[in-house]
């Protein structure tokens, strides 16, 4: 038996200490096992979204509730992206975990940088902050070169740290830029398993130039999670 997904609002900590409403896509029948998904940052969130919703759909059929929240400044959020910080995104991920009573957390790619503490789960193909920025800065260098402008990486990085910068259409504020440069993957606590992409197989969705969906990948991810989370009732 499957549940249609719904969009709900949840109270999310905002930069500056307020709380604002953000959206979350949920499969929620109040079951014991509840998975929170922290998506990748920036463009990879778009490329992975279809896959992640399909993972949640499969888990729903296996008796596991699922939540895919919007982080402030991302997806449907009305908060300005340029004002977001890594620290506040971490607070938002932790607040979502508490609000939705997650019993497991799946982070995807750079989403691993936001992993809430104290909940077991999986990091799928985690990527650190420096690598996330590296590719986006390179995209800007290539685009500038195509437009006949030379923009050295040093100059882009200095601007990013001082006043923030738009990379591949994403406006990254100075605090977020600086924090991402230094953001390493968290040391693995007990209960957190890294899922390398080789385990899932086929072409990585984040590498595709256009959004794509591979049902076999959703099957493989959901199977790993369902086996571990399903209640032995």
């Amino acid at each position, binding site marked *: 038996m499957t549940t249609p997904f719904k969009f709900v609002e949840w109270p999310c900590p905002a930069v500056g200490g307020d709380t604002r409403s953000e959206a979350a896509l949920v499969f929620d029948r109040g079951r014991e096992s509840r998975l929170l998904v922290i998506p990748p940052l920036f463009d990879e969130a778009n490329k992975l979204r279809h896959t992640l919703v399909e993972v949640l759909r499969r888990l729903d059929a296996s008796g596991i509730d699922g939540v895919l929240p919007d982080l402030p400044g991302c997806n449907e959020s009305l908060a300005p992206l340029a004002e977001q910080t890594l620290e506040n995104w971490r607070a938002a991920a932790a607040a979502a975990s508490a609000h939705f009573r997650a019993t497991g957390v799946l982070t995807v790619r750079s989403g691993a940088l936001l992993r809430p503490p104290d909940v077991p789960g999986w990091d799928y193909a985690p990527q650190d902050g420096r690598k996330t920025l590296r590719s986006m800065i*390179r*995209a800007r260098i290539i685009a500038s*070169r195509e437009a006949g402008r030379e923009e050295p990486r040093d100059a882009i990085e200095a601007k990013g740290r001082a006043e923030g910068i738009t990379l591949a259409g994403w406006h990254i504020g100075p605090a977020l830029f600086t924090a991402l440069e230094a953001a390493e993957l968290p040391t693995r606590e007990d209960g957190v398993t890294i899922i390398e992409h080789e385990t899932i197989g086929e*072409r990585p969705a984040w590498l*595709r*130039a256009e959004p*794509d969906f591979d049902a076999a990948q959703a099957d493989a991810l959901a199977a790993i999670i369902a086996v571990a989370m399903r209640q032995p009732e």
Partner: protein
Amino acid sequence: MTAQTSAQTDPTGPARSTIDETLRAILRDVLGLSSERAAQLTPDSGLFGHLPELDSQAVADLLTEMEDRFEIIIEDDEIDGDHLETYGGLLALAEAKTATR
């Protein structure tokens, strides 16, 4: 399915054919090509500037993936249009970087 060309019979030698195969696999992943289509890429096959879906971000991701799979670092000033415009140009970049690894 078509048989893989064995390294022994490949006149370009095993090292070079491995780079070629890996690069085709990366392009297959980035562009969503079938293995058959990826195998049909020729040195003259157009890439950046020829395929609308291959925008600057996709090219940047492609270069980052090449760095990971070939264990190389591609400096920004080494990336010029000639390397990105055709499959042959990209292969030449991969071969040059792996040779000096």
